[in-house]
């Protein structure tokens, strides 16, 4: 995909993100995420590392955001806060109306199961399960009937172009195909947020573009809020909004060029 193509990506607006996006009373887009003075520290040997340092950030619903920055700058930590994988040391993280920073472990798990889809750099597929079974793992509460689970997983796989590979193990798939399975797994439960941590980091350039086309497509079609952590400027340029994290502090880089 070229920069010209990137510029054709629609900007976030109530119309663009569709009916599922919450709107404010005034008709503007309601924030999907609201981070206020978020700090996250980790003990590391004899010192404390500040991964996030007083981050204030609002991400509107339906926005595609790219997060860049040097290694160790706090990108993945920010993604974990957004994904309800961890709680801040101080400050608040709100997902819609939910305060993730005050939620218990069970509530965080429920939020992840209901609202958030993850795509990882290393795909993180279960090696012993087939592609369609991996997609089925997204039904986290285990209450979805088997037939419905399988049918929805097969539809999700078909939507990423892997209907014919449903019964293959991850080891029998290419890197790009594995990432497609991971995207299908993230989307099958119809989340409101898709968080991608270096989704193209392990892929060659051609496959990277395929995956980004796919992610943009589902973002556009489903009105998702999409946050992508990436080192790749080509990937970042496709986002509506670019953030840069250095030493735990977030700066707006601006919209895509």
């Amino acid at each position, binding site marked *: 995909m070229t920069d010209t193509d990137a510029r054709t990506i629609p900007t976030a607006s109530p119309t663009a993100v569709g009916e599922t996006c919450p709107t404010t009373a005034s008709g503007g887009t309601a924030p999907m995420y609201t981070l206020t003075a978020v700090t996250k520290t980790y003990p590391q040997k004899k010192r404390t590392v500040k991964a996030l340092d007083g981050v204030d950030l609002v991400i509107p619903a339906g926005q595609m955001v790219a997060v860049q920055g040097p290694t160790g700058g706090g990108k993945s930590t920010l993604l974990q806060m957004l994904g309800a994988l961890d709680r801040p040391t101080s400050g608040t993280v709100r997902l819609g109306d939910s305060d993730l920073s005050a939620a218990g472990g069970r509530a965080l798990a429920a939020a992840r199961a209901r609202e958030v889809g993850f795509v*990882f750099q290393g795909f993180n597929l279960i090696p012993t399960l087939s592609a369609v079974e991996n997609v089925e793992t997204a039904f986290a509460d285990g209450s979805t009937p088997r037939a419905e689970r399988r049918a929805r997983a097969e539809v999700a796989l078909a939507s990423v172009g892997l209907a014919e590979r449903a019964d293959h193990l991850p080891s029998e798939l290419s890197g790009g195909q594995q990432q497609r399975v991971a995207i299908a797994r993230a989307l099958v439960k119809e989340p409101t947020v898709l968080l991608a941590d270096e989704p193209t980091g392990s892929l060659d350039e051609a496959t990277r573009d395929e995956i980004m086309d796919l992610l943009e497509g589902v973002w556009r079609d489903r009105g998702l809020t999409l946050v992508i952590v990436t080192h790749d400027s080509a990937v970042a340029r496709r986002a509506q909004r670019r953030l840069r994290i250095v030493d735990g502090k977030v700066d707006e880089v601006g919209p895509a060029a």
Partner: protein
Amino acid sequence: MFLTYLLRELSNRRKQTVIVAAGMALAIALVIVVSGVAAGVKDAQSSVLESVYGVGTDVTITQTAEPGADGPGQEFAFGSGDGTTADDGSTEVAQSTLSAARGTATFDSSVLATVEGTDGVSAATATLSLQASSFSGTLPDFSQGGAGGAGTDGATGGGADAGTQAAPPAGGADGAGGSAFDVDQFSVTGLEPGAAAVGPLTSAELVEGRGFTSDDAGADVVVLDETYATSAELAVGDTLSVGGTDFTVVGIVASTSSDAATASDAYVPLDTAQALSGLTDQISDVYVTAASASRVDALEADLQAAFPDATVSTQSDLASSVSGSLSTASDLVGKLGTWLSVVVLAAAFLLAILFTVAGVGRRTREFGTLKALGWSDARITRQVAGESLVQGLIGGVVGVAVGLLGILVVNVVAPTLSAAATAQAAGPGAGGPGPAVGGGGPGQQIAQAATDVALHVPVTASVVLLAVGLAVAGGLLAGAVGGWRASRLRPAEALRSVA
């Protein structure tokens, strides 16, 4: 999803599954074999004890013999006019006695009535253990000799002392002054003819003739043990001299255990035995059946309180009287076998736990990912526990199969164990210096049944269930530890550790 994921994990981590299941199988098989052999040894002990005490006897009451209480021991006294003198001067003498068995103390038969009146007693009967001895022989004509003494050894010819000796004795068994004596002894038990519910004959079956009926009270009738009848060449209708009185053989019995003889060589009505032995209203043993198996220990205590001088024993007490290689096997199974089972079982559990925890460590990214997908800690714990449980079950099933195979091998080989059940212990000095076979001596015990027992290992559903239960417990324990470790993983850290 649960089962699919579980089966995929077990089949794809085959090496771990095989190792954990094999360890569990080894432990379970060992538990089954040891438990089975223990039960087999216990059955063998019961078989030996039943041959002595009968079936259904929960408690026995005996009296410990006082040191020296038996007086001078077995002796045969002949007066100068006893015997029949032949033409060559030889004198033929014969005498039969019936007395309390060596090491046996008798007590008043009123004890039985007291026992029967004790709360918790279902049935009780009394017996009198006796020993019949007969002496017959030919003495030479000592009248031609001087003042020499008789030989001190019943089987040697001529005197052996240094007295004045005008001429050697003449006549005798060999016609040259020799002597020949026959001494025969057999055990006799006097029992109540109508008591069929409890007592030594409850473990015997009638081979020939009939058993006692209440009409036999006071009669000179005898029932013989098959082994003794065969050796003495006696059959139903023959006559057996007991204590100088001729008894008619009315029946022959054999132990229901193929491995053991009955408790006594001959059985006679109790009142007849008392009269012949001069032990009027005396008994030596009381056999008691408790009304409830759970009441045995309480009954033992009650009876001990009622008869403080008596020895009151339960079956478990009596089991200690079984000696021989059966006893050694019992000790071996009871101590070494049990401890070996415990150690191997603990090792198998530990192995299962370590492998499960190591597996959780290897699958950190996997569990972190599942948590990121929204899997709850409980669901992850269930998944890990399920995998361990199935590993344990596989080990349990294989272990049961191997254990049953081991039991089959033991039963095919059927190792023979020797056993001797001893009923009463004589105190120091009990008995006396008499010539009786099985004479006294310090602490000597009277063997009531000596036999070889082929070990048969039973298979019971309870042992199999116990084994499977242990396998399940082992799997659950490993799963609980592994699941706990997995649930403790924080998703952010789990994913970060991979990065």
